[in-house]
C-alpha cells in the first residue's frame, strides 16, 4: 500500500519536483535567498511581530544601464522620448546621452536610475522576472557578509552608516563592487535606493479606519525603536523614502533589481 501511495505521489508530483531540482541552480545573475523570518518596521493590524519570507531568487546586483539599454532597444515605447508621462515623469533616463546612447553620466556597468516603478516593472516582465516585494528586499538586506541577520554586527552597521551619510557620487560607480552578503547579493546598501513591487502599499494615507492612520503607525514604530539602534533608523529612512514615492516618479539615485520565485 505504501509503495502504491509513493508511486502515485511520484506520478502526480514527479514533473514539478524535477523542474524544482533544475531550478536549484539559481538563474543567471541571481542568488538564492533561503526562507526565513524578519520583523517589518511597521506593525500591522492583528499581525505577528515577524513575517515569514519564502525562498526566492534575487539579482546579485542592480540592473545596469547597459542591461536597460537592451530593453529599450527591444521595446521602443520605453525609450526616453517615447515613454508616456502617465508611466514615467519628466526626467526619465535624463542621465543618458540620448534615446539609445548612454554617455559619460551613465557608465554601462553602473546601476540604471531615473526609472519609474512602471518602467522597472516593464523591464522585469521583459526579462521574465519581477521586482522583489518590500518584505523580500528588507529580509535580504538584513544579511551581512557572514550572517542572515547581520543587524547586530557592529561592522555591518558601520558600513551602513557610512553610506547613509555620504552623498551619491556622479556618475554612479559600477554595480557589484560592494561586498557580497551571506546570500551572495551585493549593493543592497551603499549604491542606490531600489524600487520594490508593492511600493504602492508602503504607506497607507487616508486610511479606511480613522483609528489607525498612517502617521500614528509611523510614530508608534519610530517610538518603539531606540534612536541609538542604527539599523532600525536605516529601515526607518527607507520606509520614509518609499512612502514619498509615486509609481511614475524618477529619482537620480533610485534603481532596481530583479527577483523570481524559487
Amino acid at each position: 500500500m505504501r509503495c502504491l501511495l509513493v508511486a502515485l505521489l511520484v506520478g502526480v508530483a514527479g514533473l514539478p519536483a524535477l523542474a524544482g531540482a533544475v531550478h536549484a541552480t539559481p538563474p543567471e545573475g541571481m542568488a538564492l535567498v533561503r526562507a526565513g523570518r524578519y520583523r517589518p518596521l511597521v506593525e500591522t493590524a492583528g499581525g505577528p511581530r515577524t513575517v515569514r519570507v519564502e525562498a526566492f531568487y534575487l539579482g546579485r546586483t542592480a540592473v545596469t544601464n547597459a542591461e536597460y539599454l537592451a530593453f529599450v532597444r527591444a521595446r521602443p515605447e520605453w525609450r526616453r522620448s517615447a515613454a508616456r508621462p502617465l508611466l514615467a515623469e519628466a526626467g526619465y533616463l535624463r542621465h543618458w546621452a540620448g534615446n539609445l546612447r548612454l554617455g559619460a553620466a551613465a557608465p554601462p556597468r553602473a546601476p540604471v536610475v531615473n526609472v519609474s516603478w512602471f518602467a522597472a516593472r516593464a523591464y522585469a516582465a521583459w526579462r521574465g522576472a519581477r521586482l522583489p516585494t518590500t518584505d523580500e528586499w528588507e529580509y535580504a538586506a538584513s544579511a551581512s557578509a557572514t550572517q542572515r541577520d547581520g543587524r547586530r554586527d557592529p561592522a555591518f552597521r558601520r558600513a551602513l552608516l557610512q553610506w547613509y551619510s555620504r552623498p551619491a557620487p556622479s556618475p554612479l560607480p559600477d554595480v557589484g563592487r560592494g561586498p557580497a552578503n551571506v546570500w551572495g547579493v551585493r549593493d543592497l546598501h551603499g549604491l542606490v535606493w531600489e524600487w520594490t513591487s508593492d511600493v504602492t502599499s508602503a504607506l497607507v494615507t487616508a486610511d479606511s479606519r480613522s483609528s489607525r492612520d498612517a502617521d500614528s503607525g509611523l510614530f508608534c514604530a519610530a517610538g518603539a525603536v531606540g534612536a541609538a539602534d542604527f539599523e532600525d533608523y536605516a529601515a526607518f529612512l527607507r520606509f520614509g523614502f518609499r512612502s514619498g514615492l509615486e509609481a511614475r516618479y524618477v529619482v537620480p539615485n533610485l534603481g532596481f533589481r530583479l527577483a523570481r520565485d524559487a
Partner: protein
Amino acid sequence: MTRVLPLLLLALAACATPPGADDAVPYDPTAPLPEASLYGVASAWQSDAGEPAALADFRGRPVLVAMVYAQCGTACPFIVRDMRRIGEVAGVPGLQYVLVSLDPERDSPEQLRAFRASHDLGDEWTLLRGEADDVQTLAALLGVRYRPDPDGTIAHTNRITLLDADGAIVVRQDGLGTDPGPAADALRSL
C-alpha cells in the same frame, strides 16, 4: 413692443441653446487615445458575471472608479454611497460606475455578485477582479495605496476617481462623506 418681442424671443432661444451644442460631434471610439488615458495601459479583468473585461470597454462615457473589496465592512459601503451621490448631484446621463477589487484572491465573481446584490447595484455598475499585477498597476495609476493586513482586512485609500470619455483622470475625491459638489461639477462640465 411688437417689434421687440421677436427679438427677445430670438435672444431667449439663443440662450437656451448652449454654445457649440449644434456642432457637437459624436464620440469617435477609433480616434487615438490621449497620452493621459488609462485605457492605453494594458490590463485584463473579469467581471462579476465571469466575463472578460477591459477598462477600455468604458471608452466614450464618463466613469467613476474606485477600488474596494467585498469583505470590506467599514469604508467600502460608504464609497458606494459617495459614488451614488456624485451621480445624483451631477444628473448626467450615461455615467458608468466601476468597482475594482483589491482582493482578487477572495473576491471571486460569486463574491462580487453577492456584493452587487447586497448593495442593490444596477446595470450601470460594473464590478471587476484581476490578477495581482494588474491590480497593482491600476492602484498605481489611480494613486490608491493599499496593504493587506494579517487580520484579513485591507487598509486602503478611500478615493473615487472620475475618468473622462477617453479614460483620462479628471478629478479625484478623497475620504468618506466628502462633499460631492466638485466631482459633480467636473462631471457636468465634461
